């Protein structure tokens, strides 16, 4: 019952009662009105009936003035229902007879004229007055009202009760369940679907409640999904904000945001760090004070981003460069990228400027120019090196023939004891050796690998060089040394280092025209910060510094970048090969060392050699390991297969080895060599092969040979090859690697060692 007393039920009942009462009242009023009219009609009919029934007799009695008869008739009429009073008056309006009495005001009075046609005329005889009461009619109406109201009240009560129960059963209890379900709804939780406990008929009936339930379920799902999306959006927004803040704060460039009034509203940490202001110091101000030159604010800042204040101007967002001023007054060059901040709707929210300190860039740009020069220099030297290497290879082949055959000639001439011929051949051999040394220097410049590095005590080496050099220095040139004996050791090929110092000292000597001073300095510089003159590398850190300084004519600035190129010489024709400084360049850079040239015309030049100090943990070379001990022995008829596309070299090797009791089979075709070896692999004890050959290269041929007989000793020779050295030759299984031109003795020693160890 408590549920039945729910507010909506009460309201429903009240409305039903009110409506029913109103309808009842209206219908009752209509009913009463009709009854009243019917009652009046009935009364009028009664009067008419009296008129029809009694008028003639009363007329007759009145005509005959029979008052008693009239009285009798009136008495009879007054006993008729609702008739309370009747009377008859004569032509003088005098009452002749009457009956009844008037005891109420609710009456209907009807006057009936009594006349008689006499002699063709209507003769007025008198008036019959009939008064009927409406009291009975009213009483009937009251009774009717009471019956209607009571019956309607009972009906309304029963209908209301019925409606209440039906409404509760069909609606209210479901509404309460919907309310309870709705109370439990939480925006953050996906709700169970609302299901009403309805009868089978109503359950599947597509009515308003089903629509409400469907709508609530849809609404619940939509709210949950919307809430989830909102949360996701909030998270995404927070993440975006955090991301934006992180990005904004992590931007290494200074970022400033101004509003539409060009007042600063936001700065990033890089800005604060860059300019030295705090945000509070700049908040609300324009960016004018940030410009080193206030006119730049108008020229670059204000005019670009405040088009409205300058008629005809446009917001320009291109990058511009200007100088900025920090809080401490210092200035710096800055590159600024500005732009308007607009929402997607297009409304302007302000402007953003990203200011990049270009101090480092300017510096780097300068360095980049140096690097560019370095690259060009390196490329130039590399191309020259390749050219030189190619020439050296051919030269070596030629020299190998010259030296080999001159060596054979010397052997043959020893039988004749002709000193002149011996001297001729020896001069040929010396010239060939000088040529070989020249080629070796060329190869030293062009090769990518150093010679044989070892720990070198530079003070000792310099002293040796000074001792050797001093005779070559005229007395007009003062030779001075400033040697720091405690400099760390360096890892260098001692011979090549010797050559470097000699080359530089000879150049210094040649630069001094008459008299002057040649100074050799050795020191340990722990804070080098410079650029290599030849390779343009930027140099930082600790270096052992060897300086060859002269007071000569100096080098023209425009020649400084080209003095390390091969065949570049400022000396006169015949005075120099042009290879000195290029050899120095090649040797030093293959030992990770650099050279810096300082020169002034007529004041002299200084060549600073910067050598990295030796670190014992990274290098452990043993100089003694590379010393050769050559022993020439009898060939013992060992069969040697010689392969060289240069037939002169092949013939020379056959002659040399045959002299020393070797059996030699030679061929100028690497393919033929493979065929020979394939035919009878066990006939050969050792193979000497050139690397650079047409058809099959030396290494390719060796691989095929090893497929047939892996343990056959192979000596790989090469005049010049970037791809082959001792390590790679040993790695692929060769017994050793020899550089052309190979000295006869060296070859014989090598053969003896290999074959004796076999």
């Amino acid at each position: 019952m408590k549920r039945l007393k729910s507010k909506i039920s009460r309201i429903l009942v009240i409305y039903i009662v009110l409506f029913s009462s109103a309808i009842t009242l209206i219908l009752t009023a209509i009913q009463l009105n009709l009854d009243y009219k019917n009652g009046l009609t009935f009364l009028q009919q009664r009067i008419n009936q009296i008129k029809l029934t009694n008028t003639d007799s009363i007329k007759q009695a009145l005509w005959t003035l029979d008052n008693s008869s009239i009285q009798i008739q009136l008495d009879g009429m007054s006993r008729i229902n609702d008739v309370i009073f009747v009377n008859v008056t004569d032509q003088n309006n005098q009452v002749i007879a009457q009956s009844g009495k008037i005891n109420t005001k609710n009456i209907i009075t009807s006057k009936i004229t009594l006349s008689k046609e006499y002699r063709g005329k209507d003769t007025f005889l008198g008036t019959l007055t009939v008064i009927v009461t409406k009291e009975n009619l009213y009483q009937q109406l009251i009774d009717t009202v009471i019956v209607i109201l009571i019956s309607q009240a009972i009906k309304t009560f029963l209908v209301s009760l019925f409606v209440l129960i039906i409404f509760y059963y069909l609606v209210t209890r479901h509404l309460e369940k919907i309310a309870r379900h709705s109370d439990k709804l939480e925006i953050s939780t996906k709700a169970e679907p609302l299901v009403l406990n309805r009868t089978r008929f109503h359950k599947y009936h597509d009515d308003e409640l089903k629509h409400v339930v469907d709508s609530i379920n849809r609404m619940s799902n939509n709210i949950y999904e919307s809430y989830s999306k909102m949360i996701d959006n909030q998270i995404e927004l927070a993440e975006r904000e955090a991301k934006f803040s992180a990005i904004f704060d992590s931007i290494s460039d200074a970022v400033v945001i101004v509003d539409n009034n060009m007042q600063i509203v936001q700065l990033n940490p890089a800005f604060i760090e860059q300019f030295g202001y705090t945000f509070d110091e700049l908040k609300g101000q324009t960016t004018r004070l940030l410009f080193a030159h206030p006119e730049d604010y108008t020229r670059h800042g204000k005019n670009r981003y405040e088009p409205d204040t300058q008629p005809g101007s446009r917001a320009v967002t291109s990058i511009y460069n200007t100088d900025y001023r920090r809080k401490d007054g210092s200035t710096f060059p800055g590159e600024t990228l500005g732009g308007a901040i607009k929402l997607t709707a297009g409304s302007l929210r302000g402007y953003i400027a990203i200011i990049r300190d270009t101090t480092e860039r300017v510096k780097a740009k300068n360095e980049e120019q140096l690097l560019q020069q370095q690259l060009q220099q390196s490329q130039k030297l590399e191309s020259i090196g390749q050219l030189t290497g190619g020439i050296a290879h051919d030269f070596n082949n030629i020299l190998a023939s010259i030296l080999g055959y001159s060596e054979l000639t010397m052997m043959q001439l020893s039988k004749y004891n002709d000193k002149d011929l011996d001297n001729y051949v020896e001069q040929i051999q010396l010239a060939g050796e000088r040529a070989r040394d020249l080629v070796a220097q060329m190869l030293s410049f062009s090769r990518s690998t150093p010679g044989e590095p070892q720990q070198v005590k530079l003070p000792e080496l310099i002293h040796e060089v000074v001792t050797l050099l001093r005779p070559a220095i005229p007395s007009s040139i003062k030779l001075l040394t400033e040697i720091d004996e405690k400099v760390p050791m360096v890892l260098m090929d001692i011979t090549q280092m010797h050559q470097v110092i000699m080359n530089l000292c000879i150049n210094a000597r040649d630069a001094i025209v008459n008299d002057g001073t040649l100074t050799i300095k050795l020191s340990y510089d722990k804070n080098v910060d410079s650029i290599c003159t030849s390779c343009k590398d930027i140099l930082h850190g600790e270096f052992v510094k060897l300086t060859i300084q002269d007071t000569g004519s100096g080098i023209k600035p425009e020649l400084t970048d080209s003095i390390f190129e091969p065949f570049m010489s400022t000396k006169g024709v015949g005075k120099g090969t042009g290879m000195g400084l290029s050899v120095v360049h090649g040797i030093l850079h293959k030992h990770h060392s650099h050279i810096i040239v300082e020169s002034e015309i007529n004041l002299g030049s200084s060549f600073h050699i910067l050598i990295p100090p030796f670190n014992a943990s990274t290098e452990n070379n043993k100089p003694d390991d590379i010393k050769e001990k050559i022993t020439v022995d009898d060939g013992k008829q060992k069969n040697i297969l010689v392969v060289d596309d240069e037939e002169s070299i092949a013939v020379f090797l056959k002659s040399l080895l045959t002299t020393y009791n070797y059996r030699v089979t030679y061929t100028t075709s690497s393919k033929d060599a493979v065929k020979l070896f394939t035919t009878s692999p066990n006939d050969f004890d050792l193979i000497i092969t050139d690397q650079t050959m047409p058809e099959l290269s030396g290494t390719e041929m060796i691989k095929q040979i090893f497929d047939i007989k892996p343990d056959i000793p192979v000596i790989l020779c090469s005049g010049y090859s970037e791809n082959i050295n001792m390590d790679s030759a040993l790695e692929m299984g060769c017994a050793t690697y020899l550089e052309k031109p190979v000295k006869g003795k060296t070859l014989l020693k090598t053969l003896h060692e290999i074959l004796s160890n076999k």
Partner: protein
Amino acid sequence: MKIKPYISIIFLFFIFSFQATAETKLHITTGFTPPVSDFYRNILKEVDKRMPELSISFEVLPAERSLILSNQGVNDGECCRIPLIITRQYKNLIPVNHSFFSARFSAFAKKNRKPIEKFSELKPYSVGSVEGWKIAVNKVKEVEPAETHIVTTPEQMFQMLDKDRIDYGIVGYLSGLKSISNLKIKGIRAIDPPLIEKPLYIMLHIKHKNLIPEFNKVILNMKNDGTINLLYNQLLKSL
């Protein structure tokens, strides 16, 4: 335009000749019933004959209604009434000077009853009368006899008298005779002289005042030449 004298004379002649030949219609009613009403009709027929300028019609009406209508001028005269009584209520009626008939209220009783001469002698008796006969009724009521029975018709009264329900019946003389004749009752007589005898006069509406002298002249002539008696005797013979 000047009207010639002889044309005017001719015009006036036509006017007067028309007036001389036009009849005045008189409708005279009576409240008496037969045989009296028949006597009146005969008298007025004779008057009509003797007054050629008049055209008299006659009608019997209820007694009171006859007076009322004549007084109202609906009718032209009433025949016949006692002027002294009538003119107090009906002021528009004026009487003719000469009466030709008298109202006689007689007492009727069986023949063995003692004759009476005046109303006061009725007191110890049972007396009946008839409605409409106002003078008789009023006189009876004044006497307050031992029993009074006012009935509606003379026939009722004579039947009661015949059955001895009343001792004396008071009604007009001619009406009483007529009713006895009609009922053929034996042994009842009219006591002579009547208790009341009053002369009756023709009553004309005042608008016919100018006709009074002519009526006087004619009625007087009819009396004198015996016409009235003749007609009265004829009435009596019929009863």
